[in-house]
């Protein structure tokens, strides 16, 4: 029995810069069910983090949500004021950032920062709140929690700090946890610990997790459902099996071919040609058309709509649409 917890519908987010307006997210839609682990994967600049920040409305000062809806349990977050949002953050939805070195305040102790989250969002105070903080640190696998609470961030290692961040994010038992590249700054052995931790906690607390990362390995290991983003748009979405074994978008295919894996050891990698697109002037058509080998005329001029491959799988690529409606679009010619 799945229940849609958060529904992002046709989200547009843009940033005003000196060079012009940068549309970082262009019409992204997805749903997260209760207890689901959803992965967003993409290169830097694909809009994956901005999508996550838009949900929390913690965009930089020059950014704003210029269109679309974000429905949390049926209510549109984009119409909420700051006070309502403050209630939402932490209590209903919390976020772990990429860099555990800079996301903790260096001049306050761990306890101070952890208690702030607890006292702000729950009615726990004093000793009860402190006990809760100790409990949370134990939960994320930090030994000697009472000692750690009195320490400052610089006294902890990177892995420990990320655990503190997780403890802080989960202290108020949110429904949704957004993990924005939670392990990118960490070593593989520590990464394995943290990922295991997130999986365990998800099982224990039943929250939904939105995992944003560029690492296909992490995605493969963690997620049930995957969204592939490029140029601020969703290229392809589906279950992990469908995306990895039956990719239908040229970008996803290229991405999977270009990483070293068990099958292509000793062989040449097949890189995606060209360079990532400039977000200042997005192509009129499909955002991937400039790097796509299979690009057709229509790819350059019109954005592809999402087409259904099967019930677990959707892709936005004209090739699929062409294959499905071959006779109707008879005029489409390969470039």
């Amino acid at each position, binding site marked *: 029995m799945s229940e849609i917890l958060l529904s992002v519908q046709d989200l547009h987010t843009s940033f005003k810069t000196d060079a012009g307006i940068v549309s970082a997210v262009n019409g992204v839609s997805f749903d997260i069910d209760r207890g689901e682990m959803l992965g967003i994967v993409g290169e830097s600049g694909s809009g994956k983090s901005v999508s996550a920040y838009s949900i929390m409305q913690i965009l930089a000062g020059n950014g704003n949500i210029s269109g679309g809806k974000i429905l949390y349990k049926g209510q549109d977050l984009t119409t909420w004021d700051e006070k309502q949002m403050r209630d939402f953050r932490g209590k209903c939805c919390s976020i772990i950032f990429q860099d555990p070195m800079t996301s903790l305040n260096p001049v306050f102790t761990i306890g101070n920062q952890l208690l702030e989250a607890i006292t702000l969002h729950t009615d726990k105070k004093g000793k009860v709140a402190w006990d809760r903080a100790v409990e949370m640190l134990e939960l994320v696998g930090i030994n000697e929690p009472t000692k750690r609470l009195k320490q400052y961030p610089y006294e902890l290692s990177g892995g420990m700090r990320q655990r503190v961040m997780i403890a802080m994010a989960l202290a108020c038992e949110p429904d949704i946890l957004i993990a924005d590249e939670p392990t990118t700054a960490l070593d593989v052995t520590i990464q394995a610990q943290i990922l*295991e931790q997130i999986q365990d906690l998800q099982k224990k607390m039943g929250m939904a997790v939105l995992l944003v990362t*560029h690492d*296909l*390995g992490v995605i493969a290991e963690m997620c049930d459902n995957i969204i592939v983003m490029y140029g601020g748009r969703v290229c392809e979405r589906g279950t992990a099996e469908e995306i990895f074994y039956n990719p239908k978008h040229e970008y996803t295919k290229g991405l999977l071919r*270009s990483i*070293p894996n068990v099958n292509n050891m000793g062989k040449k990698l097949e890189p*995606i040609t060209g360079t*990532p697109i400039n977000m200042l002037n997005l192509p009129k058509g499909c955002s991937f058309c400039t790097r796509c080998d299979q690009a057709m005329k229509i790819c350059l001029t019109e954005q592809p709509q999402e087409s259904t491959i099967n019930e677990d799988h959707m892709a936005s690529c004209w090739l699929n649409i062409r294959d499905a409606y071959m006779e109707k679009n008879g005029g489409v010619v390969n470039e």
Partner: protein
Amino acid sequence: MSENILEVQHLKQYFKVRNGWKLLDLKAVDDVSFTIKHGQTLGLVGESGCGKTTVGRTLLHLYEPTDGKIIFDGEEVTSKNITAMRKKMQMVFQDPYSSLNPRMTVEDIIGEPLDVHKLYSTRAERRDKILSLMETVGLNAEHATRYAHEFSGGQRQRIGIARALAVDPKFIVCDEPVSALDVSIQAQVINMFEELQERLGVAYLFIAHDLLVVQHISDRIAVMYLGKLVEVADADELCNEPVHPYTQSLLSAVPIPDPKITKARQRIVLEGDVPSPLHMPTGCPFRTRCKYATEQCAQVCPELTDRGNGHFVACHNR
């Protein structure tokens, strides 16, 4: 001529660190020995802070080694002959954003090693050499007059590689050359390294923390932990049959981009963090996180011994 282009014997690199009023030795690299054959690639992997970058830099005398010998092409590398040696060994740095001088044009960046080693007689020859180097690494010759900031990360890394190739070296230290790049660009650069090796016969020390990338590009792999080598073997053998418990856990921690494989396998999750190199455990450096650790491990540091087939392991129990 020996078959090894590089022989490193008992290399040590200690840094003096002030801890309060005490001066301590930080043993970044402690008694490391390895060899690299002509035209081959040795991958060096390990977690951050294990000393892999220091090894690379010490080879080129960017740091004066505390102790040990570096023999390159039959000749010992010393601080006296290092300038001449750097004509044969070069380095590509991790961060393509900070390793190029922002005030120099691409032409001057790539031309600088030619200037230093006086590898041309006329201006025209210099320019020809630079343009052919740019072509080698897949850069457009029209971009020679541009500055580094006008290029993307992948292109900057190509400039760095062209600069290293300028003196026609036999050996290049590649210090995390692809880790700052996007996945789709990484493959382009990795392929280029492989093509250059085939064409020019250059040997690499390929330092990286991404094991899949290292396995792809390397002939042999050395695994480092807290300044010491714990296992050295042929790439496929090391990845398929790791012997040292650290290598085993490192390999099992690498996320494999294949849901069926990665969900089916058993992860060996290591307890705790890497100890501080200022307070190294006695004996084997890995014993604090090792499930096989015994009394002996706390007292004697295991030596790297040959287990047959050129597979070297430093462990008492495995």
